[in-house]
């Protein structure tokens, strides 16, 4: 970790060393092309925005805790839900997943770095800048209602609400441009991930011998290339409408509002699989280690993931069941949406099969994965319910749907991300996180999560729409909303414990060593943290679990694969 061009701190003696050391270190991070540092920057960036998005959520929950509240104005509330969604998806979950992928994929395939290190850095900085641009909107201009120009059109930015006629300020422009910029970053990272996995594997690691994390990030990368592009295209069209007088979505000139919906959801649906597939990757690495068994059914896991990727591009209009498509159109999307549940369900069974007959260890990473399994099952089932279009005609755009997708994004994705933190933190820093704090984090978060998102299904059933800044007392939604808000506070406390754990463990955590979990993939074969060049000698592998082969020379995997 020593920069070659700047003087080494030791040369200046103790007094001058501190100032030069900080400058040197900051410079190192800004110019780095090392996948590990870039990965950590992605992760740190996301954690900051997780806090920001969380604050936005808390403000909304306080406003909605009681009927007819005046905690925030409608203008501010509409900015809050737009920014919360946009932030969490594009500047928290995606960068977190890119960060972990960046750090882990080259290590797990036995490479020295990603295929295109400079593109890697460029992609990170584009994403980072996009987030800053999005948040600059709060102070950039007074906007239409004097509440700043932060986007307030919903994270889907439906037309023609986003047309100049209906959104006269710059809020839509900040949304569009911030996402165009970060979209370039996402595509760059995807190109890097796909190329790295295809072109940089170590000797002996055929595609059939890659860790599942590598496979799933390969699939995710391919999906990003296919899904972010339609969003980019639609946003360019929106800019043409707003700035060059175009009519793509101009209903007054014969344009179609529905075609924005189609373009957006062709991005939007695969996007949620882009978010969940790396979550599956974490579960697929962690569950085997803490069950002490190989993953059950590796080839089918790969096939199911590829199947999900392809089918997920054919389900998008289940977000549009109420738009007025003809009955056969609706029926097609019912079928494809239910079909995608099959490979998804298969994965749950395979994880179950992995635990079956194993010796399950309830360390914090595994606790989060077990909760993930239950919660993903429930979230997937409410998804199947919503795939039944008539049911969706009732519950679409209600709090039932909000509960459903938070069940997946928080209950499945964020839970596995937490698992990933506890599992790989020792590799990133050389120290273990505290198990005690980890268990407090886990249990409090589970309680808060269920308080909020279990009960959130009910207001939807009772008719409460989403994106409303308040509701009348006589609708009967008040008590439920209060419970949802209380759960949010509990989750906040849990996340604060997590942050304390992250920071504290860096300084006083138990030293981890190379392989604290007795795991089997290549990242555990090098030091914690790894040296900049990852491996002194690039490895050669013969099976999916190279370290298992070394630890069990009498019973290596390559005999059975």
């Amino acid at each position, binding site marked *: 970790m020593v920069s070659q061009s700047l003087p080494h701190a030791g040369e200046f003696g103790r007094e001058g060393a501190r100032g030069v050391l900080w400058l040197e270190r900051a410079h190192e991070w800004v110019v780095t092309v090392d996948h590990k540092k870039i990965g950590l920057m992605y992760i740190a960036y996301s954690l900051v925005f997780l806090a920001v998005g969380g604050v936005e959520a808390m403000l909304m929950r306080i406003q909605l805790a009681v009927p007819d509240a005046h905690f925030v104005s409608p203008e501010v509330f509409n900015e809050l839900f737009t920014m919360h969604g946009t932030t969490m998806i594009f500047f928290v979950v995606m960068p977190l997943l890119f960060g972990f992928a960046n750090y882990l994929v080259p290590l797990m395939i036995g490479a020295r770095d990603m295929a295109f290190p400079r593109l890697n850095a460029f992609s990170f900085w584009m994403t980072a800048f996009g987030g800053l641009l999005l948040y600059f909107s709060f102070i950039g201009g007074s906007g239409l209602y004097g509440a700043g120009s932060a986007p307030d059109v919903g994270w889907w930015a439906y037309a023609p609400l986003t047309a100049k006629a209906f959104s006269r300020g710059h809020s839509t422009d900040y949304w569009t441009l911030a996402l165009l910029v970060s979209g370039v970053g996402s595509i760059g990272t995807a190109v890097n991930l796909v190329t790295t996995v295809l072109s940089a594997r170590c000797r002996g690691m055929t595609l059939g011998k890659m860790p599942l994390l590598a496979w799933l990030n390969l699939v995710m990368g391919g999906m990003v290339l296919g899904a972010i592009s339609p969003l980019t295209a639609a946003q360019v069209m929106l800019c043409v409408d707003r700035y060059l007088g175009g009519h793509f979505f101009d209903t007054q000139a*014969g*344009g179609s509002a529905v075609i924005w919906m189609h373009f957006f959801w062709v991005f939007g649906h695969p996007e949620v699989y882009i978010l969940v597939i790396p979550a599956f990757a974490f579960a697929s690495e962690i569950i085997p280690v803490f069950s002490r068994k190989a993953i059950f059914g590796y080839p089918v896991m790969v096939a199911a993931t590829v199947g999900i990727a392809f089918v997920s591009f054919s389900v998008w209009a289940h977000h549009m069941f109420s738009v007025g498509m003809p009955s056969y159109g609706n029926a097609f999307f019912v079928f494809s949406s239910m079909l995608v549940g099959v490979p998804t369900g298969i994965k749950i069974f395979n994880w179950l099969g992995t635990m079956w007959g194993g010796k399950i260890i309830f360390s914090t990473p595994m606790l989060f994965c077990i909760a993930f399994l239950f919660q993903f099952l429930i979230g997937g089932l409410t998804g199947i319910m919503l795939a039944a279009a008539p049911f969706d005609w009732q519950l679409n755009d209600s709090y039932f749907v909000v509960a459903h997708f938070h069940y997946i994004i928080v209950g499945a994705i964020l839970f596995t991300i937490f698992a990933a933190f506890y599992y790989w933190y020792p590799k990133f820093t050389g120290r273990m996180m505290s198990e005690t704090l980890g268990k407090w984090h886990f249990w409090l978060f589970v309680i808060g999560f269920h308080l909020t998102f279990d009960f959130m299904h009910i207001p939807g059933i009772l008719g409460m729409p989403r994106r409303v800044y308040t509701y009348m007392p006589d609708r009967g939604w008040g008590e439920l909303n209060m419970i949802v808000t209380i759960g949010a506070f509990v989750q906040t406390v849990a996340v604060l414990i997590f942050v304390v754990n992250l920071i504290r463990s860096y300084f006083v955590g138990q030293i981890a060593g190379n392989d604290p979990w007795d795991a089997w993939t290549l990242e555990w074969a090098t030091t914690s943290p790894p040296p900049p060049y990852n491996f002194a000698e690039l490895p050669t592998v013969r099976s999916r679990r190279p370290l298992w082969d070394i630890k069990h020379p009498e019973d290596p995997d390559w005999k059975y694969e």
Partner: protein
Amino acid sequence: MSAISTTVPTPEPPWTLPSRGKTGMFCLIFAESAIFTIFVVAYIFYLGKSLTGPTPAEILRLPIFDTICLLSSSLTIHAAVSALRRGNSKMFLLWWGFTLALGLKFIEGTASDWHEMIYREGFSIKTNLFGTTYYSLVGLHASHVIVGLLGLSLVFLLALAGKVKTQHADRCEVFSLYWHFVDAVWVVVFTVVYVIGR
């Protein structure tokens, strides 16, 4: 300490993986194709739906010569890369320069067509749905041609300075993939806009 090797010594078979330049470029092409697909879908969707203004049949002239130029440039760039592989720097420079010239002619043709339509006939991106989708789609393609021309020019200047050698043939080939992609998109755009749409 991170050396890992198999316990059973085997003769080392060759370990070949796809070239990262080509793989990366194919990824980029895949993403760009998705973007173009959306614009093509929008173009086709809005055919016949304009409330006013000129229709494609009324105002579009077939850019036959420009198309021939652009499509031939795929052949010339292929010839250039082959020449470089054989070590023939002079022929490389010639064919590469020819590619650049053909690309420039294409852009000049588009620009003059547009100048005619916008300033003489008053048909712009604002005029109607056809105007919006036409200028956006053809403009998106033209912007990709321009990026290609910038790359072509950069390599051309480097070649003039004598810096482009046989060992750079792979990189030039990766770039040529992009150029072929741009040509392939034009085939689609031409068919949709000038053949089907009219």
